[in-house]
């Protein structure tokens, strides 16, 4: 075991042990975003505090919060009706504040229809409810292909729908932010709301999978 003061290795080894600062590896778009943001603040389009507040609202969301909303809709018919009528109003009681002009729009899976969400133009996602989208949701591969060949993409996620089920792709291209209300799985009749929450996954709320029966 080396003792303090042992110094028989070269200094090149030291250099290799340092992680580069994140700022040293910023890409073109990260730098462009900072530059544009600073210019917009200088021009008074928005303030630095408004920008910070925007991130705070988006960071409020996470998939556990989404699961709470779904499990509530499964067990409370009035809440479900409210969620399907105007999602933004329904989730306000969970302190979810939709950003800007956007509105939460819930689409319900049934025995006849399976819904799946994509934003082909960028990566729109209900962040105040679900948090940040997964990387694959933002990938060009997913965005281009799920609109074009949804059944193949669903199969790649391991999702095979029963025959006769219509696949409905929603391109989140404007002011709605979509939440898939999955079907409550069979065999959960005696479950508490908390147990149901535990079954709901982010991917099921995007619609690339379904909520599986409990194992």
């Amino acid at each position, binding site marked *: 075991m080396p003792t303090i003061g042992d110094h028989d290795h070269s200094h090149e080894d030291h250099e290799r042990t340092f992680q580069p600062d994140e700022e040293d590896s910023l890409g073109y778009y990260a730098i462009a975003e900072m530059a544009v943001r600073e210019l917009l603040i200088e021009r008074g389009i928005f303030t630095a505090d408004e920008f910070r507040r925007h991130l705070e609202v988006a960071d409020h969301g996470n998939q556990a919060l989404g699961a709470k909303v779904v499990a509530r809709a499964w067990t409370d018919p009035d809440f479900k009706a409210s969620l399907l009528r105007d999602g933004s109003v329904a989730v306000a009681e969970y302190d979810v504040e939709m950003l800007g*002009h956007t509105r939460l729009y819930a689409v319900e899976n049934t025995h006849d229809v399976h819904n799946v969400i994509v934003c082909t133009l960028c990566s729109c996602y209900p962040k105040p409810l679900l948090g940040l989208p997964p990387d694959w949701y933002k990938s060009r591969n997913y965005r281009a292909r799920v609109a074009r060949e949804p059944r193949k993409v669903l199969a790649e996620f391991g999702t095979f729908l029963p025959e006769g089920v219509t696949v*409905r792709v929603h*391109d989140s*291209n404007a*002011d709605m932010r979509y939440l898939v209300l999955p079907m409550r799985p069979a065999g959960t009749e005696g479950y508490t709301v908390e147990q149901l929450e535990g079954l709901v996954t982010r991917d099921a709320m995007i619609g690339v999978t379904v909520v599986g029966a409990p194992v």
Partner: protein
Amino acid sequence: MSARFAIGDTVRIAERYPPGHIRTPYYIRGKTGVVADVLGAFPNPEERAKARDGLPELPLYRIRFRQTEAWPDYDGDPGDTLDMEIYHHWLEPDKPAERSG
């Protein structure tokens, strides 16, 4: 501006290609679908992208397309659909008589 189309109306998406920030995806321009929902009035994003107020607000609709309309070679179930939001000024009433003539 009040909504001019109602749920169930058949509409065609304008086939034009202006520059700028356009929320009407290329792949749906010139295609025909059905109004699935009338969402209310929203500021025009094409104007807001230029730091203008986007007023007057435009009616926004959810339009449902058959996948086979969006992609003629679609090989999933013929009942599969693609829904998206289209602002009022991109919608044209469908005129089947003129189109078939």
